[in-house]
């Protein structure tokens, strides 16, 4: 240390690029770049010039279907949403009981936010989830505490999307890990089973998995045994997502240097100890981006339950838009619902980036 002069605490120079310099450096650095900037700028401006008068100035924000009809072709009919929000969010749930799915949805969002905070990552998190899910179950089913019973056939809207996505992700994830480990197993039976499952499920569209789960699966059940349509859809989604996720996880397992497995073996760790403490923590960190990609895909794919007649939030909105007086507002409906999906998916994406940085901190000196 003695040889280092006093200037050792000099900081790297802080860059002080002004806005104008930034523009010059990033948008107008060459003739080609300038031309591209102008073309893209023109397209953006033209699009906004088309959208803003329609979507903002001339739009009908509140009011009846008649007011929308008057503005048709000139302004957007955002009034669709205030007029139909209860059906979009709760669909066919009994009207007087809408507070129940509302509270259930809020509980879901609370659970997401609570779990996203790293300080809460301890044993208590398990209890919070158990409590939260129990509350959601009671609210949705009812039949206790003086709440009327509501069959799953009547569930719908946002809460249905959240249920399918939450349980889909929460259960597909561990299943995917088992499948990925199984696919690399030295036991031929386990390996074959996992490969067959993954390839079979991955080889068909989700729509057909859902269709099979809802129409064909009951045919194999013994006479008189039924099980819930929603549950069947949920199982279909879990299977489908787990097959994709398993391949993502396997990528992580393969990317891990062989030396890590060998060091764990040489220290005498059992297979499951090595997986739990050495292999999976490293392998999963490596595949956070493609994993989140799959989660986001799953979240949006839940809307395919329409095929078996369930009304998730997107299909509830489409159903609302099929009422005679609200016909013809497709762009508004899809725009609004897309915005909602975007909020959820963008939050997932942003949060995962943060987690990734945090988890990989040990890699930086």
């Amino acid at each position, binding site marked *: 240390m003695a040889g280092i002069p006093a200037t050792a605490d000099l900081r790297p120079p802080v860059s002080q690029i002004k806005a104008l310099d930034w523009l010059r450096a990033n948008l107008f650095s060459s003739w080609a770049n300038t031309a591209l900037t102008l073309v893209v700028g023109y397209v953006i401006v033209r699009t906004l010039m088309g959208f803003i008068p329609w979507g903002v100035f001339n739009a009908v924000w509140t009011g009846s279907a008649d007011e929308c009809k008057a503005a048709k072709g000139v302004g957007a009919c955002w009034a669709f949403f205030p007029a139909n929000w209860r059906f979009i969010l709760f669909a066919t749930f009994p009207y007087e009981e809408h507070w129940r799915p509302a509270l259930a949805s809020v509980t879901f969002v609370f659970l997401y936010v609570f779990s996203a905070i790293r300080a809460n990552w301890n044993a208590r998190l398990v209890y919070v989830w158990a409590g939260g899910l129990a509350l959601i179950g009671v609210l949705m089913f009812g039949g206790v505490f003086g709440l009327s019973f509501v069959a799953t056939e009547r569930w719908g809207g946002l809460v249905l999307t959240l249920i399918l996505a939450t349980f889909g992700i929460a259960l597909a994830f561990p299943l995917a890990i088992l499948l990925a480990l199984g696919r690399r197993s030295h036991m031929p039976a386990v390996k074959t089973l996992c490969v067959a499952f993954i390839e079979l499920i991955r080889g068909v569209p989700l729509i057909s998995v859902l269709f099979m789960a809802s129409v064909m699966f009951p045919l194999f059940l013994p006479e008189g045994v039924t099980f819930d349509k929603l549950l069947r859809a949920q199982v279909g989604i879990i299977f489908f997502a787990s097959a994709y996720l398993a391949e993502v996880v396997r990528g992580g397992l393969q990317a891990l*240097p062989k030396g890590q497995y060998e*060091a764990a*073996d*040489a*220290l*005498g*760790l059992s297979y499951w100890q090595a997986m739990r403490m050495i292999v999976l923590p490293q392998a999963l960190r490596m595949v956070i981006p493609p994993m989140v990609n799959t989660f986001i895909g799953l979240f949006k794919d839940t809307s395919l339950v329409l095929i078996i007649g369930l009304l998730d939030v997107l299909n509830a909105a489409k159903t609302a838009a099929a009422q005679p007086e609200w016909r013809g507002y497709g762009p508004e409906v899809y725009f609004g619902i897309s915005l909602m999906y975007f909020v959820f998916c963008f939050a997932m994406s942003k949060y995962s980036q943060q987690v990734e940085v945090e988890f990989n901190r040990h890699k930086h*000196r």
Partner: protein
Amino acid sequence: MSATAAAQASGEPMIKLTKLNKWYGDFHVLKNIDFEVRKGEKIVVCGPSGSGKSTMIRCINRLEEHQQGTLVVDGIELTNDLKNIEAIRREVGMVFQHFNLFPHLTVLENLTLAPIWVRKVPKAEAEETAMFYLKRVRIPEQAHKYPGQLSGGQQQRVAIARSLCMKPKIMLFDEPTSALDPEMVKEVLDTMVELAREGMTMICVTHEMGFAKAVADRVVFMDKGEIVESNVPHAFFDNPQNERTKLFLSQILNH
């Protein structure tokens, strides 16, 4: 030196390989290996690249499986029985060429993981042992860093300490210094010499002939999957018997 070392090595065999054979597909990597290591003995294994040195020592803790012959470690015969494999791995430490530390765990966690989960040592005790061995390898101040923050030599010393924390009876080293920058080789070799002086049973695959002369009871030369020659260091280096040994020694000593 070798007289005192030989005295340290008591009669009981710790490792005994008998007519050991191994194939990778059609490729015969280990051919009829007969090899015995007594308690406290230090063996240096050398030989050209691809001669099967790593494969042989990796058979001893079952990182590789042999197909013929018997392999007995500390009185336990290595079979497909998982119980035996786990028992042997608890007694045999291994140090790798590329350290193979767990990058997502701190140095201290690297050292305490196996004692806690395999030996069921209480955490406080495991940490105490870990700090003891970190002091032995002279880097106690790095305990809370991640492996990626250490130099190669420091990482290899952590790897040695990690193995020692399991209180093994036997230590295997597979070219522990060949991935290191020259200036870091000495600090790792010093640690190994110290360990040898304390009477640890050791098998080292290395081409550090200075180390072999200083601590080995026997030097074993392997070529093409066979043990070609095995002798005490001074006889091995000064008066090699086999032509292949002579050729190998002339190659590694002449540069």
